[in-house]
Structures are given as C-alpha cells and as structure tokens.
C-alpha cells in the first residue's frame, strides 16, 4: 500500500474527476492540490511529470520511492496503488 498519494487537479478537468472517483471506489485516500485554487503550486506538477497537464498523481511508496502518473491511466495507476 502506498504511503502517500497526491493528485494535482483543476476544477474543470474531467480526467481529474475520474481519477478521484476511481481511487474513491478502491477505498484509497489521497490529498488533492487544486491548481486553480493554488496556481503557485502548478510548477510542482510540471516538475514531477515533465508535462503541462493534469491530472498528475504522485504516489509515494512505503520505501520512499515515487511514481508519477499523468492522466487517467489505470494501466499505470492500478499497479502503483496495489
């Protein structure tokens, strides 16, 4: 199980909504950074993913290793939270 999950989102992003809904359905907790509300933190998402896109999901494992998933990509999200 992951130690921490942070999702960078915007208010209007449907893919962000889907990632959150999917994590909810799995019973997995997460923190959300909404860059519409905190634009000063947008650069964190860019730095983590190398892309100017949301959602960016940063999964920190128990051993501190981080995985970054851009978009609503269940093929990558599912193993990362297993």
């Amino acid at each position, binding site marked *: 199980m992951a130690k921490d999950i942070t999702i960078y*989102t*915007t*208010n*209007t*992003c*449907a*893919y*962000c*909504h*889907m990632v*959150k*809904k*999917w*994590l*909810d*359905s799995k*019973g*997995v*907790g*997460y*923190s*959300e*950074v*909404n*860059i*519409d*509300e*905190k*634009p000063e933190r*947008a650069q964190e998402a*860019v730095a983590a993913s*190398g*892309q*100017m*896109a*949301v959602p960016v999901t940063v999964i920190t494992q128990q051993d501190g290793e981080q995985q970054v998933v*851009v978009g*609503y990509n*269940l*093929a990558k999200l599912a193993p990362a939270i297993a």
Partner: protein
Amino acid sequence: MKEMIKNNLQTAHKPSASNTLTNVAAEEPATTANPKPLVGDSKKVHDVVIIGAGPAALTTSIYLTREDIETLLLEKAIIGGMSAITDWIDNYPGFPDGISGLELADKLRQQAERFGAIINVGEVVGVEKVKQHIKVKTTDNQFLAKSVLIASGSDYKKIGITGEKQYYARGVHYCATCDGAFYRGKKLVVVGGGNSAVQEALFLTRFAEHIDLLVRSTIKASDVLAKELAKHPKITTHLGITPQEIVGDSQKVQKVVATDSNGKKRDFITDGVFVFVGLKPNTMFLKDSAIELDSVGFVKTNHNMQTSVGGIFAAGDVRSGATMQIASAVGEGATVALRIRKYLES
C-alpha cells in the same frame, strides 16, 4: 434481472461522495466511504453491453434499465465522453443558462445508475458474434451479450505536423479544460474554426494573456460564438492560415510556423498550442471485425441503427452520418434503445 435492478436501486440512493462534482478540499484526505461499485459478470450473458459511456450510451442505458433490461456499459476513459471535457454547453435543451460539460455528464451518469445501469472501466479490443450471442473483449476480460451497442464516440483529430507529437502535453494540447490552467498570463495559439475551437479559445481567455486563433478557411462556429469571438479583446482571429510546424527548444514550444492563403510564411510566437480541428471516430477496436465502417472509419448502420452484424447497433458520434451534437446523441440513444428492445423481443 429484476432482483439486480432492485439491488442497484438500493445502492444508487445511498449518499456517495462520488455523486458530486464538488472538489475535495485542497490537500484534505478524501472520504473513502463509498459503496463498492457494481461490476459486470464475465460468466453470464448480459442483456445488453454498451461500448462507451457518453451521452448516447447513457441515454440508451436509462431507457433500457427502466424496462428492466439489464445493461452493462464499458468505458475506457471518461464517463460523459467528449461532453465531459467541454467547458460549457449552451445548446443542450432544458438548461436556459447553459451547463458545464462535466456537470451534464455527471447528471447523465447519476440518472443511468439510478435505474440500475452498471458502468465499468474497460477498454474494448474486439467484438464478434459467437453463435446467437456477441462477445465483447476488453484488455483484461470478456463479456457475452444478447445485443451490443457501439457508442464509443469520437476524439479530437491531430493536425499531423512536425512538432505536434514531440511537444504533446509539453506545449501541445487537446483539452482546454484540463491543461489551460498552466497558461496563466501566457500567449497561446488555438488551431481550428469550428464550435469546439471557438468555445475552447473563449474558455482559455480566463488564463491566457492573448490568443491567436488560426483558422484554415473561415469560422464555422455558430453565430452566437462567432459574435462573442469577434468582440473578445484577448483573441485575434487569423483566417486562411494553415499551420506547418510547431517549433520549440526541445523543452517547450516557442512558435507555430504557418502559411497564409498566398503561401507566404507566417510565424506565431506562443507558449502553447491547443488543437481543435475536428473529430475522428473511436473505432480502432473494430478494424478486424465484421462490422462495416465508412471510408473515414465511422460505423455504418441501417434505418434501425443496426450495423452490418445482427444484434449489434451503433449510436452517437461514432455512427456514420452523426451530427456530432450532444442533443442528437441523446436522441439517437433513445431511438436505439427502442430498436434494441424490439430486437431482444424478437
């Protein structure tokens, strides 16, 4: 079947955090108290499997499940389809002030689930008739159905120019509502002249300092949008402009090189490019099937909205001849539900 419907109705009325579009407060842990979602059963024969969960698919599922016809939807990306990533919808009847695409999509989903529709995440990779049933294969499962509806919709086309792929998500985008927030105070280029391009360019003005709208021929958007565009101080429209290349410094986009109607080269300095140049059907998964497609790849249907394979229907943006409107997709969804019901009764 009735028992399943009853169970679904009981579940659907439970309060659920996922039934609201309200964002979880920034950086607060989200609730995890949602009911376990219903899933399709790969061992049974479903009455109807719908490929997609856009407006056409959700409407069909509302009509079918209200008739106690058990319906499974398989969606690979977003519930609500293209409508869910559209900033604002002004031409869908019943909403005099318009409605956000995300909200409309969620209302459709809630209505479908209220009557017992089962929506699963799944990318369909093949459809084939097996004796009297139809097999729908996903990347990790397969389902049998008495009837199948293809409502997999469409997706934005690429321009197909140098630099487009290289700078994807690093300066080249196809979803304004997703990625527009990264361009606060920046210069943008939007490519396209239809409703989507103009609507999304107007949306992007809430972030961008200035937008150059590059239109290959003329503005094809509705009069309402065209008038709003013409008076917007942040958007400059350039007609007769064909993008040729997206140029950057390998890290980020710097300009779009284009030609005008006289073949003269024009440079548009920009921090990012949003592309809305039309739609392509999501039918790659049908390329090896017996289902007949038109020359562009849309699914051909007869007057009953049935494809060339008995028991398999198509509706919405993916259907050859579709008008690419949400209201039309909803209408097609209702019509095809009645056709499917008749097929199941026969």
